[in-house]
């Protein structure tokens, strides 16, 4: 018989751990929604964010807030260059989706190689100490990191939702995501919307890497693996739905956490891929759309 305290602990830890996955998924899903682009270069942005913060904290001795600001600035600069010099050129040439895909993937790989050259393959955490103070709440161990992770994720998620719902720029993003050509006919600058979406994704990627890196040691190729989780969650949540992707990320994280009870830990990673196949086989447009269809009928 399973102890309820153990189940509650797994639930809480799973929710806390899902925080950075949710942030990565929101970043990925937002870019897919607005730019219609499978942005594999996000892994590169995530790696830049982490290593910029790492340098700021460990080599320059900057305080955490300044390190985050520096990490964000570096990520935004890289994203700007990526959009202006790369994606815009490909769009202007009306390149095929294959070329876009190759470009995003090689950008990501180039970043991973460049960071490996500079920082090596030794895993490094953001801070020397990765354990945070913990307290027991109703029989469940809750660490400061858990609270920070959940709080940041809720805060950023809510901010994005409000921005998309109530701000003029947010509405423009939604218009461009529906139809870029039509939006431009109404005077909306689609190029600006793309840039704003990528910048917002950078914020989420940076926040996610701060949370991930303050708890786990990172190597330059780690973001590629993390991003794959975001890809699967986006697919499962329904392409074009940022909220659906975020919920799917929580679900997948919890599933992985609870799988410890029934599956040896070395096989846990496989669950994601099994889900990927199940999703593509049975819910190719995502679970959310399936739900909507069944509700309507």
């Amino acid at each position: 018989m399973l102890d309820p305290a153990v189940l509650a602990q797994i639930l809480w830890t799973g929710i806390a751990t899902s925080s950075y996955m949710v942030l990565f998924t929101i970043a990925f899903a937002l870019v897919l929604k607005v730019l219609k682009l499978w942005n594999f270069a996000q892994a590169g942005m995530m790696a830049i964010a982490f290593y910029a913060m790492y340098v700021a904290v460990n080599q320059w001795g900057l305080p955490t807030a300044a390190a985050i600001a520096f990490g964000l600035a570096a990520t935004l600069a890289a994203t700007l260059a990526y959009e202006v010099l790369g994606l815009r050129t490909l769009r202007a040439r009306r390149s095929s989706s294959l070329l876009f895909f190759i470009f995003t993937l090689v950008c990501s790989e180039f970043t991973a190689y460049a960071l490996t050259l500079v920082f090596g393959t030794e895993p490094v955490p953001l801070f020397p100490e990765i354990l945070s103070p913990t307290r027991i709440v109703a029989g469940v161990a809750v660490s400061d990191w858990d609270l920070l992770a959940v709080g940041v994720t809720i805060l950023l998620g809510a901010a994005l939702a409000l921005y998309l719902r109530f701000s003029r720029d947010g509405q423009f993003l939604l218009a461009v995501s529906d139809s870029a050509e039509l939006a431009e006919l109404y005077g909306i600058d689609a190029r600006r919307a793309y840039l704003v979406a990528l910048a917002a994704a950078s914020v989420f990627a940076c926040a996610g890497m701060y949370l991930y890196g303050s708890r786990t040691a990172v190597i330059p190729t780690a973001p590629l693996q993390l991003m794959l989780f975001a890809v699967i969650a986006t697919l499962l949540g329904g392409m074009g739905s940022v909220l659906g992707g975020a919920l799917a990320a929580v679900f997948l994280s919890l599933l992985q956490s609870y799988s410890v009870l029934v599956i040896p830990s070395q096989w846990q990673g496989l669950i994601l891929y099994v889900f990927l196949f199940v999703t593509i086989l049975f819910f190719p447009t995502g679970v959310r759309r399936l739900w909507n269809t069944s509700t309507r009928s």
Partner: protein
Amino acid sequence: MEYVYSILILVGIYVILASSFNLIIGTAGLVSIAHPIFFALGAYTAGLLAIHFHLDPFLGAAAGALVAGAFSLMISLPSLRVSGDYLLITSIGFQLGLLQVIKNLELTGSQGGLNNIPTPVPGPERGWIFSAVSLAAAAATVLVIRWIVRGPYGRAIRAMRDDELAFVALGRNAMHIKIMIFAVGCAFAGVAGAIYAFYYQYVSPEQFEILASGTMLTMVVVGGMGSTWGPVVGAVLLLALPQAITFLRLPLAYMAPLQGMLFTLLVILFLFLRPQGLVAPEAPAPLRARRK
């Protein structure tokens, strides 16, 4: 001399991989990057059959091709019926998922990899015999692919790639072509894997990670996507490049990332400056006939 032989063997292996990858991604326009896992399937199948059943190497290579081709159906059947994007995502998931399995199975040597694969050609003759076999297999692959691409089936493949809707409207079965091309391309990668396993007598899962996809992609993009000879030029050029870096005598820790950076930078430069690659795709045969 052994060094030259090893380079020639690698050239043969990578020409097979790049040409077969080009058939899938360039000629048929199927966006998959899981080619290294089919290379791995061929290598592991041939290696395991040689270790446990002492199977003839040619039969081992055939089995490697068969297993890689059969496994390709696991990706193509579920994902091709939806759209190109799904194939891409499924291919990544399939590659990483299968690597996870290989890393955890005792049969495949787990994380440490599969070693002690018996060599079919022991002794001093080994180097040149393997070079000859590898280069012959590469030549055969290129010629078979050229034959497919230049024939009526090749025209159908290109028609499907360029306008699938019109192709289907004409009563042709696009799914059938996609599945066939995907299986054929993956089977060639399986043959390359078998040659690799028999020559190096060791296979490890790290060799087939997602970064290996980047290497193959580089060969195809730099050489010329959609052209028959482009991937051959790309494979030879990109195998020569690391040899040139070797002479810089940099520490080993710098070599691999530097090589990776050069590869990916080349792809980016070619994407923007010469998207057709070094060898542009040939004009379709019927068009040339009409010009005459």
